[in-house]
């Protein structure tokens, strides 16, 4: 595909993708929470609760800790922006995204890393026990999850001879349905990484503020109002992005490949919706059936993910050679 | 002719004069003056040789060729600088009450005598006289080693005397055998049969069986003087217990002369045997000395002993290089002889003053020289770096050529060289660093130390590492052709 021909239609798709992501991301979180509630026989919160929270937070007055530096204030915007960028290069509906020329899958991993680093730095900035603790744990999770994700992407890009996510998706989607055992391994790895990176049970529990266990929430303790809103929104976006990566790698079918027409998109949107619904339900199911790990067990959990990914790589090489 | 007679005459005269007036207030200056005269004569001789090439003098009894003329020049030069250094040093010793005026006279007389014997050994063409001169060199230094009359110095002197005497006796037997072999070729009139030039001319016809035995005796004999392991046992004691100027000339000059004798013999023997065995023997001695010295260095506590062992190490390198043979290795060996004697004597100068400053030869007592007297500190540091073969000092140049050639011709020696040099480096530098750096324990000296010689020597060594003057290079090449063998 030509890299930088200015195509207004594709630019439009790009914009739509990002906006959809921004719009749908909280909904996905809401959906997951609702499913969890149902599975736990609780009365489910409203599906729109995340939107409500974000709006509420934006209206509040921001309270900054005395020792907070500019870094603390700018971090939410950076984290949010990286997530938006990520959403821009992950083919959720169409694969013809101009921004992809600028950032392939490796760069995507890099973006996630950037977000993580700034999140952790911001958490360390105020200098409370919780902040540093959270930052440390986050980085601990990250330094194992990141290479695992990279390996997952490697397998896919070895299969399709490119590191551009849409191209991978296109390749996997368009060619005749071949079975890839290596992808099976990586699928498992990816699921584990997704759980870890999005602060889900069994690695973290978004619902509690129990200092023994919390990771992500610990880092946000000092945040309030609009900063917190951006952080929350960013984490919704992260979940959405991971979901879409999963779709692109493992169930790419239904993505609008080729020249993007309104029709193709019109077909892609419901498909995406369906995938999200299923994925959310599945996520909720996993979270419900699995127990929270002790923090010190998290590395083992992620090491497993890493190993699965590398195993997938090996399997790929073996079977191809 | 005149140059030669001056060259040998000045030290002889100096010895006589010093024997009477050496104790006077101007004794040291007298010593330095004679050495200076000798140096000038040596320069004249050198110029002559550069002009006319090799010369035979006094009924062929004396023979000066590129090989020995640069050793003569070197000997005279280091002899002079050492005399300069020994002025304040010996004065300080007198002040510290370690030597009396009478001993000072002995010291100066013997110093000149020692110079004489070395120059004689270098310039003579007669293998017999070479032996005589070598023995005389031992005798003239043995009383210098015992100058302090301490138990240790006496012990060192005794060992020096007996071991070298016995060793040199073997060399005499070797000379006899050589004579025996030569006589059968050159006829029995006996005058020419010990002249190296004649032997060299007919070396092809000499009887191999005899020559082989002769070489063994000569090697053991002169090898003892050169301090090759396992014949080295006297060396660390003698070099460590004598006055430092003597250590400087023993390490810097006498060893060279012994190596010179060995090489002269090797040339003849290789010409006669046409076998690599002599070379192999030299290489074996060289490697053994190198390795053993490296391990000995590891345990030293006395600074002069340390550098005495380092001399053994470098003699090992030189012998090894001569054993390798070939133009490059021989060139490197000759270069190494030069730079080693310059560097090692410079180091001994510094060491002498450092030991005087701190009042002890034990390295644990010498600390932080650079803080109390930067010149001595940096002198020691630079000297140590130079002797350890770090560029741009000349020692590195020769070691570069030797190691690379060894790697090419005898790869099996490479790991040995690597290990030995590494251990030696760790041993010496690990001792020198705390002496130069860190907190200090030194005091002032009654006489200002003479550090000019140190830096002159080091400067020359530095230059030799970066630029070998053409005529010097030509000497080396000619000499290398001479001794390089096939």
């Amino acid at each position: 595909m030509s890299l930088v021909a200015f195509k207004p239609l594709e630019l439009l798709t790009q914009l739509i993708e990002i906006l959809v992501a921004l719009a749908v991301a909280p909904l996905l979180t809401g959906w997951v929470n609702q499913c969890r509630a149902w599975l736990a026989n609780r009365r489910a919160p409203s599906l729109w609760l995340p939107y409500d929270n974000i709006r509420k937070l934006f209206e509040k007055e921001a309270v900054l800790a005395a020792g907070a530096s500019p870094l603390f204030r700018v971090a939410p915007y950076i984290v949010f922006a990286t997530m938006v960028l990520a959403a821009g290069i992950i083919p959720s509906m169409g694969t013809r995204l101009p921004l992809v020329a600028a950032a392939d899958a490796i760069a995507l991993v890099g973006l996630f890393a950037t977000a993580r680093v700034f999140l952790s730095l911001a958490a360390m900035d105020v200098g409370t026990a919780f902040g540093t603790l959270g930052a440390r744990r986050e980085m601990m999770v990250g330094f194992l999850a990141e290479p695992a994700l990279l390996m997952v992407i490697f397998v896919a890009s070895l299969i399709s001879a490119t590191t551009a996510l849409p191209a991978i998706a296109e390749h996997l989607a368009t060619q005749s349905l071949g079975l890839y055992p290596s992808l099976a391994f990586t699928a498992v790895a990816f699921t584990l990484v997704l759980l870890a990176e999005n602060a889900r049970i069994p690695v973290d529990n978004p619902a509690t503020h129990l200092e023994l266990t919390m990771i992500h929430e610990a880092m946000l303790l000092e945040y309030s109002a609009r900063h917190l809103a951006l952080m929350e929104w960013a984490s919704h976006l992260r979940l959405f992005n991971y979901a879409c990566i999963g779709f692109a790698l493992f169930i790419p079918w239904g993505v609008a490949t080729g020249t993007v027409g309104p029709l193709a998109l019109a077909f892609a949107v419901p498909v995406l919706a369906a995938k999200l619904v299923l994925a959310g339900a599945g996520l909720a199911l996993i979270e419900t059936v699995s127990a929270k790990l002790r923090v010190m067990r998290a590395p083992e959990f992620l090491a497993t993910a890493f190993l699965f990914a590398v195993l997938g790589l090996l399997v790929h090489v073996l079977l191809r050679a | 002719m005149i140059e030669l007679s001056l060259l040998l005459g000045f030290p002889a005269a100096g010895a006589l004069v010093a024997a009477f007036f050496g104790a006077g207030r101007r004794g040291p200056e007298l010593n330095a003056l004679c050495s200076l005269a000798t140096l000038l004569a040596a320069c004249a001789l050198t110029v002559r040789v550069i002009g006319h090439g090799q010369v035979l003098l006094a009924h062929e009894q004396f023979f000066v060729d590129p090989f020995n003329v640069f050793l003569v020049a070197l000997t005279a030069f280091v002899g002079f600088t050492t005399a300069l250094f020994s002025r304040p040093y010996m004065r300080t010793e007198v002040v510290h009450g370690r030597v009396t005026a009478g001993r000072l006279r002995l010291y100066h007389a013997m110093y000149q005598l020692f110079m004489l014997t070395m120059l004689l050994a270098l310039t003579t063409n007669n293998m017999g006289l070479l032996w005589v001169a070598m023995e005389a060199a031992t005798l003239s230094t043995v009383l210098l080693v015992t100058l302090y009359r301490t138990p240790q110095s006496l012990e060192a002197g005794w060992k020096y005397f007996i071991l070298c005497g016995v060793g040199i006796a073997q060399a005499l037997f070797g000379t006899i055998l050589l004579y025996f072999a030569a006589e059968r070729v050159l006829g029995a009139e006996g005058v020419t049969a010990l002249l190296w030039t004649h032997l060299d001319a007919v070396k092809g016809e000499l009887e191999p069986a005899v020559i082989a035995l002769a070489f063994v005796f000569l090697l053991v004999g002169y090898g003892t003087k050169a301090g090759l392991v396992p014949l080295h046992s006297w060396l660390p004691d003698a070099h460590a217990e004598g006055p430092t100027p003597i250590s400087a000339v023993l390490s810097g000059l006498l060893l060279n002369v012994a190596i010179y004798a060995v090489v002269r013999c090797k040339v003849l023997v290789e010409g006669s045997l046409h076998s690599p065995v002599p070379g192999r023997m030299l290489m074996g001695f060289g490697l053994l000395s190198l390795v053993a010295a490296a391990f000995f260095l590891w345990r030293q506590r006395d600074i002069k002993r340390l550098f005495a062992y380092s001399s053994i190490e470098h003699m090992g390198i030189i012998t090894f290089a001569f054993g390798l043979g070939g133009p490059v290795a021989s060139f490197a060996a000759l270069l190494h002889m030069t730079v080693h004697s310059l560097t090692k004597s410079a180091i001994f100068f510094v060491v002498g003053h450092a030991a005087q400053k701190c009042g002890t030869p034990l390295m644990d007592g010498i600390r932080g020289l650079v803080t109390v007297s930067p010149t001595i500190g940096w002198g020691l540091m630079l000297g140590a770096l130079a002797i350890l073969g770090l560029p741009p000092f000349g020692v590195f140049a020769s070691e570069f050529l030797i190691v690379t050639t060894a790697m090419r011709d005898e790869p099996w020696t490479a790991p040995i060289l690597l290990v030995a040099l590494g251990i030696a480096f760790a041993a010496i530098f690990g001792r020198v660093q705390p002496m130069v750096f860190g907190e200090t324990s030194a005091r002032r000296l009654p006489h200002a130390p003479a550090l000019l010689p140190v830096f002159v020597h080091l400067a020359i060594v530095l230059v030799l590492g970066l630029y070998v003057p053409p005529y010097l290079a030509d000497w080396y090449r000619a000499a290398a052709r001479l001794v390089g063998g096939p």
Partner: protein
Amino acid sequence: MLTAPLDLQLLNACAALLLLLSFAMLSQRRIVSLVNLLIVQGAVLTCATLLLAWRTGQSHLYVSAALTLGLKVVFLPWLLHRLIRRLEVYWDTEPLLNVSGTMLVGILTVVFAFALAQPITQLAATTMRSGIGIAIAVVLLAFLMMITRRKAMSQVVGFLSMENGLFFGAMSATYGMPMVVELGIALDVLVAVLVLGVFFFQIREQFDSLDLHHLESLRERQ
């Protein structure tokens, strides 16, 4: 020829005598008698030289004979005796290797020496071929003696007998060295012994004994 001419037989006898004397020294523990043995050795050496000079008519051999006589029979022994009397060292302590063992090693050494001399002996044009082997043997035996003795004095005696061996070797191989070298060697030996004399007194005033175990402090293994 069946029977060698008398003078040659005498020469060989001298050679044999020299060897015998070195063995005697090897076994002898009284220093005074060591010196006496040295005198005898020097005397035998002189006779041998004279015989050879007379036989071959080499005039310079007479000179070296005279040198030997003066130096090794008269002067040095006299000096040594004086030293012994002044320093009161009459007995050497028990040698490091007991006498019988030393003898055994000595015999092996002699065999080795003869084996070495073999090729040379074939070549030797001189009248006394066997001399070289003997000479090497004497040198090595002297070496052995210096190794096994504990008193400085007896080491010196060994040193001198080594010189004798060398001299004998030179003589029997090549009718002696050129004159200038002979003189030089003689001078060296003389000076050496004088220096030794000085040494003895220095050592004595330091340790008031000539026992070598005082001279074992300079070592690596403390």
